[in-house]
């Protein structure tokens, strides 16, 4: 074997980031997902400077106007520009999504890592709590939390955040359980590393790949769930330009002005596709074994 045939493999080993980036940037779903999420984040960040109109001010003269050159996506029942409301809504949904997923990630990983690492009675108790949470199927857990706390922007974040805890807890626990038997972790034990160091320097960094994939995919679940809660009247309340609440409002006019409900739904749909594609792309590039 010559040096030339050996060096690419060695180089790939030396720079995992660049190898990751090469695979990620040639992955079709990752590209499209990255693009959609990028555009979405742009609107979430710069919405107020891009939106043509005030999202809260309408003119009754222009109520339920169909799409036109003046109002690209038409207006709603009190004459507010739907495009502007969707653009402002990007920020509302992003704040909910990012905060809720962060809550789910932090609490879930904490539960999963503590349970998986210490095992025994602590693990049993934590896993029973997770089992109880999972006994309420999908959105029911979030609805139950909202029922206890009451509707509203902040409570939707808490509800969708806690609703995400079980998934992160299970992934973190499974990852820690498989890692803690590995030689490099045993070596760290033998060299007298503290428990905190073993968890934060050895276990967590090596659990990053599945957690990153789950974080991305969870974004779309939380977006859908929060929008559903608002649609049901249990989430963000009008007049806040939230996509689910806009859709719920447009429902009343589905016979005479279907555009009021159609475009907010389309916005949710596109952003969810974006995060799903990005998540799929990440999964394929970070860990091909996770691919189903």
């Amino acid at each position, binding site marked *: 074997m010559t040096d030339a045939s050996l060096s690419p493999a060695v180089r790939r080993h030396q720079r995992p980031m660049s190898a990751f980036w090469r695979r990620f940037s040639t992955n079709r779903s990752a590209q499209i997902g990255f693009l959609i999420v990028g555009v979405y984040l742009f609107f979430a960040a710069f919405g107020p400077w891009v939106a043509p109109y005030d999202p809260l001010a309408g003119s009754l003269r222009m109520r339920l106007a169909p799409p036109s050159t003046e109002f690209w996506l038409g207006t709603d029942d009190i004459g507010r520009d739907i495009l502007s409301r969707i653009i402002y809504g990007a920020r509302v949904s992003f704040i909910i999504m990012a905060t809720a997923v962060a809550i789910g990630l932090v609490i879930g990983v904490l539960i999963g890592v503590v349970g998986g690492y210490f095992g025994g009675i602590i693990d049993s108790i934590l896993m029973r709590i997770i089992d109880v949470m999972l006994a309420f199927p999908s959105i029911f857990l979030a609805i139950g939390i909202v*029922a206890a706390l009451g509707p509203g922007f902040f409570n939707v974040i808490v509800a969708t955040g806690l609703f995400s805890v079980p998934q992160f807890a299970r992934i973190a626990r499974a990852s820690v359980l498989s890692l803690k038997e590995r030689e490099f972790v045993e070596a760290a034990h033998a060299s007298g590393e503290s428990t905190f160091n073993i968890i934060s320097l050895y276990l967590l960094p090596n659990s990053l790949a599945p957690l990153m994939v789950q974080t991305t995919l969870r974004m779309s679940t939380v977006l859908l769930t929060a929008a559903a809660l608002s649609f049901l009247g249990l989430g963000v309340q009008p007049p806040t330009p939230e996509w689910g609440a806009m859709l719920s409002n447009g429902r009343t006019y589905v016979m005479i002005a279907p555009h009021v409900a159609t475009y907010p739904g389309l916005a949710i749909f596109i952003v969810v596709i974006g995060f799903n594609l990005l998540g799929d792309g990440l999964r394929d590039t970070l860990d091909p074994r996770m691919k189903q």
Partner: protein
Amino acid sequence: MLPYILRRLIHLIPVMIGVTLCSFLLLKLAPGDPAEVLAGIEANPEVIEAIRRKHGLDQPLPVQYFYYLGNLMLGDFGKSISTGLDVGPMMWRALIVTLKLSALGLVLALVVGIVIGAVAAVRQNSFFDSTSMLFALFGAAMPNFWLGLLLMWTLSVTFPIFPAGGGTDLYSLILPAITLGTGAMALIARMTRASMLEVIRQDYIRTAYANGLSPPIVIIRHALKNAMIPISTVIGLQFGYLLGGSVATEIVFAVPGVGQLLVDGILARDYPVVQSTMLMVAIIFVLVNLITDISYAYFDPRIRLK
């Protein structure tokens, strides 16, 4: 087999305690004094005190919890605050509608999802394959309340083929079932395709072909049957997913099911209704998962030993 079932049943005890505790605490967390609510606006303090004693609301919380469990065992779910009627019968009626809708959605998702997935796998990389996988991507990302409104707008407003909702007969439930089943259908189609692609590369499939069996028989009887194993494991989970989706679907099509009951209950602060509905949904979901796990263990003995 029996030890496995017993183990699973024992495992269920803490979950059931937790679920009933959550539902009990939901009523305790709710704002307002339940005795005052039961007594009505004009009741004097003595009446409220009497009601409090009668319902055991003057007892410490753990005692109240056991009262609550006892009442549940007797099938007493309390009375609705807004209608004054027993929650039990209201809930059973709604539950039957929701289960009917979910079952219809699940059957639709399974039949269409499996057929699409299997055909896509057999014709890998064909036009059908790429279109159906695009459909699967879209189906999984579609908010079901949006899909419901779009279906209603096209198929009952613009072209009045289906009723816009309100009914619980099979025909009225077709649009709601499509709305509900599409997400699960997309997932099942993707899973079936992946599973089929793996199976049709196996040696025994080649052997079946070599023995001169016709392609439909090989595909259906040999390949699909084995490809179904991973699908069967997610049916329980998908059922829960459909139960969750039924909430928004029922609201869109005004189907008088559990979702409708629950949302109306929350908006009217009718906590006895909310509490019992949540509890019942959780119990049904846990039992469905138990049955799925047991049947899976029955078909795959390796599971029992884990």
